[in-house]
């Protein structure tokens, strides 16, 4: 049963990602990405990461990707044609490279000795594993400083984004 | 007492930098005032240090040793002996003079300029007080940056070329030094089982001959470029000619001494046998430098580059005296470091003063200045004569002791180097003749106003020092004597010990045991 859920979710996740990069239309890309993320969230839940899985859907799919959508709408990219004259590198070469990369990762994973060992060690997770409370406890005790630093990072990002996206005054006047 | 005098002297200029940061850059007057006051207080502090210094005590004084980066055994370890004491005094005096002398010479970017000068002061003093090799290296490199800006921003027409040349030359040397430093670090670990950059502890470590040779070469190259020993000198004329007056004063006065100081403080006591092996080479290069510098400066057309080449010659004397490895040679060498700082510094100041008036430094553009600027000419003459080592001026004491020491170590070297004394008279007097004697051939020289009160104020302390060291150098000698003897003693002692431990060391350094010296991160 679990295996089935895994395979379905995996196929949806991978397929969504693949479709995302193959789309010409960015809006469709975003939608495929959301699909992929939802499938990923399922996998997270399957791995007892309830809290993180819900965050994935709420924050990622809900907020970040909506932001993407807004930007796409804002830019109104419908008519854009991506046709540069000469390809910088042969497409085939690139795909070969990616495939090679994937295969190497797989080999690496296969070579790893510890997953098997851990399989045998794995026990049923405790009921509140991955719940809000234990994760939050960790976050506010052991990882307090990184957590606070993250907030500063976000603040900086907000300021940066605002500054960058803001139109220059004289630029506005020029447009008028 | 939380603050000790050494730390205070070293970092006081940094306080000035912090103050300067809060002054708007348009308030030129207060920027200058702050810089001068800070440098002056630093000078006063160094006088306090001088008076607290016990001239007869052996070893380091005002020593402070507190952990800094404990993970790597790096300590904030400072302390001075007589040699560093004198060099610090030189630094604080010249820094103040350089800052005052820039009063009217620098008109753009004043804030940055004074910040650079003060930063430089901290860096220079830091090099002289550091007893931890890592600290030493930090100060050594920290000095480079302000100097780079001084040449590159406030310099002459070819300033970029000169600044880059200066930095590249010095960097090249100091990177090799860094490698050698790390090697020493790990070597010390396998010797004592402790990670430390402490110089005083390393003095006690026996170093096998092969390693000594390579380490010596790495350190010596770094120092030789800084000194500069022939043929690593070509950055010097360029840097001097392009640097602003204060930059030249500091460069010639103190920066070059870093190299010679490095030899005294690190190369000699740490690598005695290697030093012995390299004595002929360095001596010969020093002699080439003496004669070559003198000859080349004879035919210069620019006063500043003449003085720059004369520095090559003078520093040749310093190196030669050091390589005599006896009390007279070494003491002469140290006193000559001070002398060169004073005399050459004063010469650069004087050249800067006429440059401000005439905007040229070409010898051919001058002549007859004695007529229009008698006070200037008198100063110029006195300083030039001290530079060629006339008795009762400082130059004589240094040169005489150096030659005396060298004569004992190697007669031929002393004879050859003495030729440099003759040549020094040739180029200096010829220059004097063309600049201040003769008829006024250029109308522009006719109505130059003589030195102002501020300019005299800058020069008079140096003139006083010139005669003081020339007539009564005893206070300086008694202070450096224990230090010099200590270095010679270290050389002999470790020389003997190393001879005894030689077999054991071979065991350490054999190829089969090389792994003993490889890095073990977990410190096993």
């Amino acid at each position, binding site marked *: 049963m679990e295996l089935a859920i895994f395979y379905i979710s995996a196929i949806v996740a991978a397929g969504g990602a693949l479709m995302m990069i193959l789309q010409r239309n960015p809006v469709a890309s975003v939608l495929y990405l959301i699909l992929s993320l939802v499938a990923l969230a399922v996998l997270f839940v399957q791995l007892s990461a309830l809290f993180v899985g819900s965050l994935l859907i709420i924050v990622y799919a809900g907020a970040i990707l909506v932001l993407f959508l807004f930007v796409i709408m804002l830019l109104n990219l419908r008519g854009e044609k991506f046709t540069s004259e000469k390809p*910088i*590198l042969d497409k085939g070469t*690139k795909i070969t*490279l*990616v495939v*090679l*990369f994937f295969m*190497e990762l797989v080999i*690496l994973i296969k*070579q790893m000795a510890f997953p098997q060992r851990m399989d045998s060690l794995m026990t049923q997770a405790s009921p509140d594993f991955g719940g809000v409370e234990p994760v939050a406890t960790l976050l506010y005790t052991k990882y307090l400083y990184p957590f606070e630093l993250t907030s500063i990072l976000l603040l900086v990002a907000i300021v940066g984004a605002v500054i960058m996206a803001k139109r220059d005054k004289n630029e506005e006047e020029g447009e008028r | 007492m939380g603050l000790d005098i050494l730390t205070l002297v070293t970092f006081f200029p940094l306080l000035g930098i912090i103050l300067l940061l809060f002054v708007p850059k348009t308030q030129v007057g207060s920027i200058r005032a702050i810089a001068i006051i800070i440098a002056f207080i630093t000078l006063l502090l160094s006088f306090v240090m001088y008076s607290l210094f016990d001239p007869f005590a052996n070893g380091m004084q005002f020593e402070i040793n507190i952990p800094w980066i404990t993970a790597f055994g790096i300590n904030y370890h400072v302390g001075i002996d007589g040699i560093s004491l004198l060099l610090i005094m030189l630094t604080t005096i010249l820094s103040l003079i350089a800052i005052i002398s820039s009063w009217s010479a620098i008109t753009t970017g004043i804030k940055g300029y004074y910040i650079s000068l003060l930063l430089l002061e901290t860096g220079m003093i830091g090099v002289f007080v550091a007893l931890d090799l890592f600290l030493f290296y930090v100060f050594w490199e920290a000095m480079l940056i302000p100097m780079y800006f001084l040449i590159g921003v406030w310099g002459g027409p070819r300033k970029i070329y000169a600044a880059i040349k200066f930095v*590249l030359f010095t960097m090249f040397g100091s990177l090799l030094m860094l490698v050698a430093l790390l090697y020493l670090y790990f070597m010390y670990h396998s010797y004592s089982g402790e990670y430390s950059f402490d110089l005083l502890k390393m003095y006690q470590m026996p170093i096998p001959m092969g390693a000594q040779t390579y380490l010596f070469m790495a350190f010596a190259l770094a120092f030789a470029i800084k000194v500069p020993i022939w*043929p690593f000198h*070509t950055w010097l004329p360029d840097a001097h000619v392009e640097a602003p007056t204060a930059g030249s004063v500091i460069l010639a006065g103190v920066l070059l001494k870093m190299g010679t100081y490095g030899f005294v403080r690190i190369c000699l006591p740490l690598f005695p046998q290697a030093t012995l092996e390299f004595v002929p080479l360095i001596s010969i290069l020093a002699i080439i430098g003496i004669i*070559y510098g003198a*000859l*080349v400066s*004879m*035919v*210069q057309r620019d006063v500043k580059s003449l003085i720059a080449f004369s520095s090559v010659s003078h520093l040749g004397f310093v190196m030669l005296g050091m390589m005599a490895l006896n*009390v*007279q040679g070494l*003491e*002469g060498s140290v006193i000559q470091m001070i002398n060169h700082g004073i005399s050459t510094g004063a010469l650069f100041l004087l050249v800067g003063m006429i440059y401000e008036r005439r905007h040229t430094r070409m010898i051919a553009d001058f002549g*007859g200045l*004695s*007529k229009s600027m*008698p006070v200037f000419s008198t100063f110029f003459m006195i300083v030039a*004569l001290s530079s060629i080592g*006339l*008795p*009762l001026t400082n130059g*004589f004491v240094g040169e*005489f*002791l150096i*030659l*005396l020491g060298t*004569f*004992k170590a190697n007669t031929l070297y*002393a*004879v050859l180097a*003495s*030729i440099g*004394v*003759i040549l020094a*008279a*040739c180029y200096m*007097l*010829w220059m004097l*003749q063309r600049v201040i*004697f*003769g*008829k006024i051939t250029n109308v522009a020289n006719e109505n130059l106003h003589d030195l102002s009160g501020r300019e005299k104020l800058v020069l008079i302390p140096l003139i006083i020092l010139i005669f003081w060291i020339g*007539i*009564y*150098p*005893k206070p300086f*000698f*008694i202070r450096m*004597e224990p230090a010099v*003897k200590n270095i010679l003693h270290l050389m002999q002692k470790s020389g003997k010990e190393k001879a005894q431990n030689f077999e054991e060391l071979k065991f350490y350094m054999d190829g089969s045991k090389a792994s003993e010296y490889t890095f073990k991160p977990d410190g096993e």
Partner: protein
Amino acid sequence: MNQTLFLIPLFPLIGFLLNGLFLGRLNKKLISLIACGSVGLSFIVGLKMFFQLISLPENTRAIEEILFTWIPSGEFVVSFGYLFDPLSAIMVLVVSGVGFLIHVYSVGYMHDDPGYGRYFTYLNLFIFAMLTLVLANNYLLMFVGWEGVGLCSYLLIGFWFEKKSASDAGKKAFIVNRIGDFGFILGLFIIFWNVRSLDYNEVFVRAPEVFALGGGLITAATLLLFLGATGKSAQIPLYVWLPDAMEGPTPVSALIHAATMVTAGVYMIARSNVLFMLAPSTMTVVAIVGIATALLAATIALAQNDIKRVLAYSTISQLGYMFTACGVAAFAAGIFHLMTHAFFKALLFLGSGSVIHALAGQQDMRYMGGLKRHMKTTYVTFFIATLAIAGIPGLSGFFSKDEILWKAFSSNQGSIWIWLVALFTALMTAFYMFRLVFLTFYGQERMDHHTKEHLHESPKMMTVPLSILAVLSIIGGYVGIPHILGGGNQFEKFLEPVMKGVHHGGEEHALASSGHSAGTELTLMFGSVALILVSIYLSYYLYVKNVALVGRLRNSVSGIHKIIYGKFFIDELYNAIIIRPLVGGSLFLWKIVDVVLIDGVLNGLAILIGDVSLGARKMQSGQLRRYATVFLAGVVIIIGYFALR
């Protein structure tokens, strides 16, 4: 009581400081008062010390004062100390006495010069340096004075610095002296590292123990010291600067380049007699160089027309005499001649200065003549000095010169050849000095009309010193009347405590050992005087009686005359073989070695790196996807390494 010695050099130093620091703010009266007064005070203190000295018993005649430790460096310790013994007493009196007279003379001579204050500043500094030289109690302090007088000589020769020839001459003097100093200082090194001290007391006591008689070390040391002496005292091969030094004001020539500074070499050798006596071969060299210089300079002096140049070559020649004396171990005779020479040569120079003053700066004897009528005092005093230098009995020069001639003949180190050359030189000296007198004071008045009308005797300020010096030139010799003439040679006896190197056994012993009788000495004395008189008559005949003959003679030997007149072209030779190659070589070093070779290699390296980088930067296409692709490729390679390892 004991602390008065340092006053001797201190007074001129104070004078120097006062005049120097307030340069341009004092009036002329005050300047001259300070300058002359300070030297005068030195002389008085010197005199007082002198009497104090002779009141001491003979063997303890030395007063030493240590002021402070100068350079302490390990075992090398040199102090600032003064030593007053018979030798330095004589030198102090000569220097401050003659110096005082010349100061006074200068007040008149330099009266209208714009650099009046500067002149006296330098002059006082000179006296200070010279007194330090002669009073020093160790070699290094002597070297201080040694270089100090060189500096003053440089400053005073180039006093009229706007004249290129003057500043050239000053520079030349300094550099040539430096070459000598180079030898001096190396000599000191040898002495120090063997004796471990530079104090006279220790050196002279320990030297005979340390150095083997005639050994290589002591020979080298003394030769090097002698090299220093040849520079300072203008001997072959370093004499070339002295004739040029005449560019300075005439009183300077009198003081520095005749009476005092140039004799420092003689003083130094006399002072080091212990060392020199240990090195017989050096003594031979000293004697030969001395006599050769005397001969060469006298020869050149024969053909010069510039009045000061003749005197300059004459000085060189006389200095050669003194060295000859030292070379034959007659140090006392050398010092004796030094003293008398100081009197009459200073007088000659001052007299010539008076002449030049009267002729408004004319120095060429071809445009003088007949001045006897116009300048009585100058003429008389000048004539006395000429008689003295020529060696006419009864004047000071006779006694000292004869002493040297006799010692050259009789001493163990002397030989008949040295004596012959010395005698020949004496004859030439008489000849050219009288030529000078005759050309200047006798015959027709050859100057132009304008000058002729303004001919005048010099002011009192100048003639009084001349007269005093004239008296000294006459009586100065009576302190050293030789035994043979019934005197006791007080002078030599007085110096005996200093001359430790020379074996004393009284005159009889010396005579016995060299095997010469009193008769020989008298014969030689009268013979030489007779020859000198002949030589003077010859001069009289040629330059007063039969003037036309000179021109004919000159034409008949025009080749030789040209060489002599051109001073054997030594200057040109030095210029061609030393100075020009040096400058050319230096240019080569700078332009080729420095700029092309060293910097070329480095800049070449920089350019090479730059070129490589130019190629490498092509990789920076600026295209995001290409960077990403390369990045990925890199990752693939690295992971591949781990995966497939």
